[in-house]
């Protein structure tokens, strides 16, 4: 990255007139977008190389919210590490918890029961809907429409209430732990979830009428920021970003965990990999998540909600253990390097947003700054998840 050259006023005027007396010449320049910027969803900094308003190059600069989670994990027991994963991708806290729980259970051979897995699946899907609702609202706001933000949050609060009743927290859940879930479900849980589903189905149609069918929104999304399937795969993009490019890879389908194998659902796949496809895939995923919940909510089997004693510090056998889940943004993986103790030797977290963000370096060049905002917003990034 070269420094900005400072030129004298005379020189600049001469250039703008042109040495040949008329033909204008332009100069590329750098602009910082962030770390404090309303459209970067946190403290992401993008260095933009611009030619006028056209983006020539995007260089993400990270580390403004690097909290050293992986290093902290080396001092915490596996149960204690779960609460830190809440704070990585805070919009899919439950799926992140699940990844740790799954890795430890697989490594330490802890058998969970059907009830635990069903509860986990339902709450994770509920949070996927909540996450997509928030994304939808913020996406509308980034495009300049404030109403979606209000609509999205109106419905998200319903899910927050349901989860709060059972879990006790609205955002950082710390609910799914190795060997089960922290609390059994609230007696009203099933009734309220069903109420929510009947409430939300017409609201989703309202979303479509408000934003999806809006011609300005469509014009701003169609064909903007095309990510080809080859590029998406080679850059390691996952989740809706990958599926929008036409690759039908969903961990819930390809290597089912929880009780996803029992539920019938479709994996929505886009064709072109533009912002429109990424939008459509997420809206469609809300529908599929509702389908999954609908099939499972009446069939929660009886059983214990926790199969290990809460205070036990689980020991994990020596070796490297890896486990991954599909969050609302893509594949979230946890790698544990254990030396046989109750504390990991090294813990590594593979977060979806890191790879998803990097696709912007491919898709944004050639578009204008306003389109860059659309592209970033369509990637649905959460910055603490990138920086860890």
């Amino acid at each position: 990255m070269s420094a900005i050259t400072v030129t004298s006023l005379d020189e600049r005027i001469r250039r703008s007139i042109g040495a040949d007396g008329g033909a204008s010449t332009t100069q590329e320049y750098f602009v910082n977008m962030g770390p404090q910027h309303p459209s970067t969803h946190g403290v992401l900094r993008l260095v933009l190389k611009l030619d006028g308003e056209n983006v020539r190059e995007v260089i993400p600069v990270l580390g403004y919210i690097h909290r050293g989670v992986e290093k902290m994990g080396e001092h915490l027991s596996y149960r204690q590490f779960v609460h830190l994963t809440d704070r990585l991708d805070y919009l899919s806290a439950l799926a992140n918890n699940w990844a740790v729980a799954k890795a430890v259970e697989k490594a330490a051979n802890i058998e969970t029961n059907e009830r635990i897995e069903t509860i986990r699946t339902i709450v994770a899907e509920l949070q996927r809907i909540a996450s997509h609702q928030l994304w939808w609202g913020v996406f509308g706001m980034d495009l300049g429409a404030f109403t979606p933000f209000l609509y999205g949050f109106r419905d998200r609060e319903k899910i927050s209430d349901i989860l709060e009743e059972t879990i006790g927290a609205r955002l950082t859940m710390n609910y799914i732990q190795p060997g089960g879930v922290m609390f059994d479900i609230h007696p009203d849980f099933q009734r309220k979830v069903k109420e929510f589903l009947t409430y939300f189905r017409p609201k989703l149609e309202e979303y479509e009428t408000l934003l999806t069918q809006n011609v300005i929104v469509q014009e701003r999304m169609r064909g903007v920021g095309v990510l080809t399937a080859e590029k998406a795969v080679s850059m390691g993009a996952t989740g809706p970003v990958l599926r929008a490019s036409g690759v039908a890879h969903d961990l819930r389908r390809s290597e089912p965990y929880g009780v996803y194998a029992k539920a019938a659902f479709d994996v929505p796949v886009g064709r072109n990999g533009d912002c429109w496809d990424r939008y459509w895939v997420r809206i469609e995923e809300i529908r599929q998540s509702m389908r999954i919940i609908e099939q499972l909510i009446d069939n929660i089997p009886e059983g214990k909600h926790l199969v290990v004693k809460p205070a036990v510090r689980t020991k994990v056998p020596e070796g490297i253990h890896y486990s991954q889940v599909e969050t609302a943004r893509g594949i979230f993986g946890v790698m544990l390097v254990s030396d046989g103790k109750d504390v990991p030797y090294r813990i590594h977290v593979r977060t979806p947003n890191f790879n998803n963000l990097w696709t912007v370096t491919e898709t944004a060049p050639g578009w204008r700054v306003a389109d860059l905002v659309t592209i970033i917003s369509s990637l649905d990034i959460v910055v603490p998840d990138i920086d860890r």
Partner: protein
Amino acid sequence: MGLITEKLPGIIEPVPGGSVLLSSMDAVINWARSNSLWPLTFGTSCCAIEVMMASGAARHDLARFGAEVTRPSPRQADLLVIAGTIVRKMAPRLKLLYEQMAEPRYVIATGSCAISGGPFIYNNYSTVRGADEIIPVDVYVPGCPPRPEGFFYGILQLQRLIREGESIRRPGERRKPVLAALPAGITLDQIQAELRELLESKAQVKLGASATAGRG
């Protein structure tokens, strides 16, 4: 103080009517400031969802407290809500943002991370142990993250601070920071009932009452 009080003659005590007028003016200015806080859109992590977004959305509605006009530029904002962890790389930027804001400016530190480092305090090499190591903080709102009601409680505490704050009689008086924790054992219904009651009483402007508060 502001333009009006500086231009007005008779800040000196002797004139019996003058001092009363000026301290009343103070109370009016402070009352106006406390009810039109413009927050900066600044959220680093999880707290931003609860404090900046859910609070501003339809159900909780920060606009009831006159603080919904979030500004992306620090030069137009007078309230800095530190929503999330501050790490060492971000610390100089936070200080810069604070310095760019015009006086009078107020700071609310929300969540454990902004208060003390929170969950990221032990065995950690990158986080700043509380935002008050970098910039002065007026109100601390505990929680991880605080729920929107908790944040509103913090906003109310800040409004109280501003109303009782600097005046002609006490120029440049440093505001003492307060911890705005919701009382233990309070239920959500109680909070909402209290907020409703407070908003109804706030709907009427009581100049007499606030003037006395400002003088005291």
